[in-house]
C-alpha cells in the first residue's frame, strides 16, 4: 500500500519527534541534576529513593563551600579575568585583523601563513615554555598578568575579524580618507561600529573560553587569593570532607550565569561558534 503525501508527513513527524524529544530530556538531565543536587544534603543525593526535585539546603551548601575555599573571592577573580581578557583580546585581534584586511604590506603573506599554519598545534606544545617564561623568567606566578596576558596569543579572533572587515565596502573608508580622517579614526569610528555584531560574538566566545579555562590557571596561580573559580572547585572534587552538595552548589554558581547569558544572547553564541565553519 502506498502512503499519500500527507500520511507520509504524519509518519515522519511522529518518528522524528519520538526520537528527538526523549533524547533532549536525557541531554538536559545532567544540568537539571546539578541544580537539584545543589539543594540537597549528601544524605539526600545518595538516598536509594532520590527524586530529582529541588530541596531546601542550597544556602547551607553555598556556606559550606565558602568556608572551604573562599569561593566568592575566586569567583571574582574569574569574572575580572574573563572580562579583561575578552576586552583586551577583542581589541588586539580586531586591530590585527584590520591590518590584514585593509593594507598591503611586506610580510603580510608570511603573517597570515604562520597564523593559519600553527592553528592546529595543541596547547600542550607551549604550556611548558609558557610556564617557564612566566613563573621563572618573569617571576610573575600568582598575578593578574599571568592569568590574563599569556592566553592572549589566541589567533582565532584575528582571522575572524579579518574576514568581517574584508567584507565591508572599501568605498566607505576611502570616502572618509578623502574627508581627511586618519587610519586610526577610520578604524575606531567607522570599521569597529560596523562590526558590532561580530565583535559581540567574538567577545562572548572569548569570555566563555577564559571563564572555563582550567589547565593554565591550575598551573600558574596556586595561591588561593589569585585562584580562579574552576581551579578552586576542581581542587575539592574527590576530597572526602567536602560534601557533593557544596561542589554542586559551586558548579551551578559557575554554570547558571552562563546559561542565562546563553538564553539572552543565543544569536551571538551561535554565530560565534558557526563563524569558523563558513569560508
Amino acid at each position: 500500500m502506498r502512503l499519500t503525501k500527507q500520511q507520509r508527513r504524519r509518519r515522519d513527524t511522529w518518528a522524528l519527534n519520538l526520537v528527538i524529544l526523549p533524547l533532549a530530556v536525557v541531554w538536559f538531565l545532567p544540568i537539571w541534576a546539578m541544580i537539584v543536587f545543589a539543594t540537597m544534603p549528601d544524605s539526600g543525593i545518595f538516598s536509594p529513593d532520590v527524586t530529582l526535585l529541588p530541596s531546601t539546603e542550597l544556602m547551607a551548601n553555598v556556606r559550606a563551600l565558602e568556608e572551604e575555599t573562599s569561593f566568592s573571592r575566586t569567583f571574582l577573580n574569574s569574572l575580572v579575568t574573563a572580562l579583561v581578557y575578552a576586552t583586551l583580546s577583542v581589541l588586539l585581534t580586531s586591530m590585527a585583523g584590520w591590518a590584514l584586511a585593509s593594507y598591503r604590506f611586506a610580510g603580510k603573506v608570511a603573517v597570515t601563513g604562520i597564523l593559519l599554519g600553527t592553528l592546529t598545534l595543541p596547547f600542550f606544545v607551549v604550556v611548558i615554555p609558557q610556564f617557564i617564561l612566566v613563573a621563572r623568567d618573569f617571576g610573575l606566578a600568582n598575578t593578574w598578568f599571568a592569568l590574563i596576558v599569556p592566553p592572549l596569543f589566541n589567533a582565532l579572533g584575528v582571522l575572524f575579524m579579518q574576514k568581517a572587515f574584508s567584507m565591508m565596502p572599501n568605498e566607505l573608508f576611502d570616502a572618509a580618507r578623502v574627508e581627511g580622517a586618519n587610519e586610526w579614526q577610520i578604524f575606531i569610528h567607522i570599521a569597529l561600529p560596523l562590526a558590532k555584531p561580530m565583535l559581540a560574538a567574538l567577545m562572548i566566545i572569548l569570555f566563555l573560553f577564559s571563564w572555563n579555562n582550567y589547565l593554565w590557571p591550575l598551573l600558574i596561580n596556586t595561591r588561593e587569593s589569585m585562584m580562579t573559580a574552576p581551579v578552586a572547585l576542581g581542587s575539592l572534587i574527590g576530597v572526602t570532607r567536602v560534601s557533593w552538595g557544596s561542589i554542586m552548589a559551586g558548579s551551578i554558581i559557575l554554570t547558571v550565569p552562563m546559561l542565562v547569558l546563553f538564553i539572552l544572547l543565543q544569536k551571538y553564541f551561535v554565530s560565534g561558534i558557526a563563524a569558523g565553519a563558513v569560508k
Partner: protein
Amino acid sequence: MPLRTRVAYFFLAPFILIFVLFWIWPIGYSAYLSLLNTRGAVYSFNPEMNWGRLLLDPAFSNALKNTLIFMVIQVPIMMVLATLLAVALNSSLLKARGLVRFAFFAPVVVSEVAYAAIFRLMFNADLGIVNTTLASLGLPEVAWLSNPASAMAVIIMAVTWRWVGYNTIIILSGLQSIPQDIYEAAEIDGVSRIKQFLRITVPLLKPVLIFASVLSIIGSLQLFTEPFLITDRGGPGGATETLGLFVYRQGFNQFNFGYASAAAYALAALAVTFSAINLWFGRDRP
C-alpha cells in the same frame, strides 16, 4: 617605508608581540627542550635521551593507546549524532524546537569542571543516580569508574554530552546554506527523506563535516580535564591516562621539562597528521 606599511605594522604590533612571546617562541623553545636532559639542576644536550625513552616507555604507549582509542570511538559517534541532530533541528517537522535546541546547546556553556563534577557524581558506583536508576529498572549495576572499559565509556559519554551541541551548531550553519529548491525538486520526484539525506545533504555538507571533524580530532587528542577530574588522574590504574595527562605529569609532577616536551611534540605530530589526512579526504577532486 611607505606610510601604509607603517600604519599596518602599527595595527599589527600589539598582537604580534604577544603572539611571538607566548606562542611562536614557546613552540620553538619546547622543540629545543625536548633535546635536553632536564633531570638534573643543570640541563645538558642529549637528543637521544627523551626521544629514545618515549619509544620504550610503557606509560607513554599506554597514554598513546588510550588517547587513540578515545579518538577513534568518540569522534565518529559525536559527528554522526551531531549531523542527525542538525538535520532534525533544521526540519519543519520538529516540535518544541526552542526547547530541544536549548537542551543540546546548553552543555556547550557549562564549565568543564562543573560538568566533570556532575558526571563523576552521577556515575558513582554506590548509589549514584545512574546505578540507582539501573537498579530500579531491574538491571545490573555497574562499577562505572573502577572498571577500565566502563571508565573509558563514561569519559566518552561525558565528552559527547558536552560537545555534540557545538558541532551541531557548526553543521546547522552548513545545512542552512544548502539551497532549499534541491529538496523541493527531490520531493516532487518522490525521493524518500533518507535518500535525500544520503544523496543531497551529506555530500553538500562535506566541507563543514571535515572542518568539524578536524576540530574534534584536535580536541580529543588534547583530552585532559575529564580524565583528570572524572576518573581521578587517569584511573582506574591508568585506564583513562591520556597524552595530555602524561605531559602534565612529566612536566608538573616530575618537573622533567625535556621529556614532557618530547611527549607534547609527539602529541602535536599526531594532531597535524590527523588534520592533514582529514583535509586530504575533503579536498575537491578534479
